[in-house]
């Protein structure tokens, strides 16, 4: 049986990749994918703990996360299309109207 710590290390690695991608990348699509990566990294730790403690709560929680993530991608992609149509760019550095 694979030890719990392996799963957690992988989960942390995936999350860190997500964070790094979010911070470094300028393309909104890529940033969006980085968010998904972070979510799935967390999901992995949930299922790993669920298996380790023999508790279904973690598994159920992962379903919730997936549902929310699906909804979020639907809304998020719609926003991205709207942004692209109005500003004709997907570079976040140029989408900076939200400031004082």
């Amino acid at each position: 049986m694979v030890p719990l710590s392996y799963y957690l290390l992988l989960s942390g690695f995936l999350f860190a990749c997500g964070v790094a991608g979010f911070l470094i990348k300028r393309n909104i699509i890529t940033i969006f994918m980085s968010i998904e990566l972070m979510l799935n990294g967390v999901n992995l730790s949930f299922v790993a703990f669920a298996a380790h403690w023999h508790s279904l709560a973690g598994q159920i929680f992962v379903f919730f996360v997936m549902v929310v993530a699906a909804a979020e991608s639907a809304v998020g992609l719609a926003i991205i299309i709207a942004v692209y149509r109005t500003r004709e760019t997907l570079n976040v550095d140029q989408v900076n109207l939200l400031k004082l």
Partner: protein
Amino acid sequence: MTSSLNLWLIPVLPLAGAAINGFLGKKFSRTAVSVVGLFFSGAAFAWALSVAARVSFPHDPELFAHWIRSGGFTVDFAFYLDQLSLVMLLVVTGVGFLIHFYSVGYMWDDPSYYRFFTYLNLFMFFMLTLVLASNYLMMFIGWEGVGLASYLLIGFWFTKDSAASAGKKAFIVNRVGDFGFLIGIFLIIQHFGSLDFTKVFAQVAPLAPETAGAGFLTAIGILLMVGACGKSAQIPLYVWLPDAMEGPTPVSALIHAATMVTAGVYMVSRSHLIFERAPMALMVVAVIGTLTALFAATIGIVQTDIKKVLAYSTVSQLGYMFMACGVGAFSAGIFHLMTHAFFKGLLFLGAGSVIHAVGGEQDMRKMGGLGSYILWTAITMGIATLAIAGIPPFAGFWSKDEILWKAYQANWIYWLIGVITAFITSFYMFRLFFMTFLGDYRGIQVDAHGHARAADGHDGHGHGEPHESPMVMLVPLMILAVLSIVGGLVGIGNRFEHFLEPVFGSGAVAEAAGEAASSAKEYLLMGVSVTVAVLGFILAYVLYVIKPYLPQKIADGLNGFYTTVLNKYYVDELYARLFVKPLIDGSTSILWQGIDRKVIDDTVNNAADGARTISDNARHMQSGNLRSYAGWIAAGSAVVIAFMIWMGVR
């Protein structure tokens, strides 16, 4: 327990009048305002008369309502009537009613007619509260209230700058005196645990006089006298009264001659048990009174404004009253208070009638020869002049002579100054009379003059020729003239003194016994005071009727001294230099520029500036750049996680 006389009605009636006229008077016609004002002051007078007819002394204090109950210390709304307050009551309501009556004629053309009667009635309420109070605190309420009414009425024509500042001056100078009065009241509470006259005096009575040194009774006495100095315009606080002449003339008659300014004399007389046990305080009273009498009389000689002469005369006569109180002759002081209310009220009303006749002019140099135009005013004022000068058998003679006799018994110096003052009084009063009524008319007789004056907001009525006042103004003059003639007769054979004996104690009786033995001396002194009064008359006649060019020569001869007296000994300037200017400078440089601007304002401004600077810097965090937000979130999470790990490790 004597049956109740409903004393509370007497002050409350004028209060009702003030309330009705004050809240509704703006919409009333002048007639309605007059009816309300006269009805309520007249009703108070009528009720006072009915009380006087029915009362039997001693009359227990009448409780109206509880006020302060704090542990063993109680103060109630209660009214106290004895012979002293009865005299005051009748003087205040009687003279007050006459002056209300007179005001109907005098103030008829004033646009704020209803306001005038509101204030007059309000004044009556407070004055009657003061007189009928059964404890020092209620007396103080009345005391402050009459001060308020006085302020409102002095500044009645508040659009005139001098009137507004005269009102302020009166109020502020009175505050100085009231402060002393208040401290005196505190001392009374501290030592006697009560403010009720009956309780305090019951505790004072068995105490021995503080002959050896000054004790708390002396302190109380002197502090009360400070209060009396403010209200009754004695040295050093007399400066407000001459300025108070800015008010309408009926106000000067009622408040600044007949009633309010005598409140100090009343208060000192009311506290006579305290003063009798504090010889030093009594001496202070006598010295202040004597000095004020002389000092104010000398200023009165050179004044040219008819009302200013009367104002200084009032200060001087009040000095006489305090002199009487100071030598322990309280009943003589109250006697003079009463006769003074008659003849000085009459003098002021007469002066009002003169001012009315010449269209608002107050300068006597522009009068003269008015006797032929306004005969009734001249006759009544002549009677008042004879009365104040101390010519028998007019009222002033009896009371002034009583005071001088008592002063002589105490110390001949008081008597001497009193006689000199009597001479000066006689002189300046006849001077006023001659300058106003005899000789040739020196005013301008064109029609425009009256209107021009009226536009000044003076006691203005547009007129050409001097003309007699309407009946509504003359009747009070005549009634007061009769009182000025016969008012002194109640003093014959010490009847007035015997009437007040239950209040002021048996000291008066002992003196009366001694008086019989030395009646020859009394007649001699009486002769002296009559002689000086006549001398004053002759001197004034010579200077202002026979040789009217002489006074100017004499004034030129005494150049420096004359100017000093004309400028009222520069007392106002001295006070301005000593008290007013340092206070204003201190307030400006320390309180305003120092504390207000530098400390309070700067604290507020710097706090705001600081908040602005910090936010100005912090707002750059919100750049609108998505990745920098993400950076902040990542950094924040890193810090939180680091903190949690650190906590867990520990």
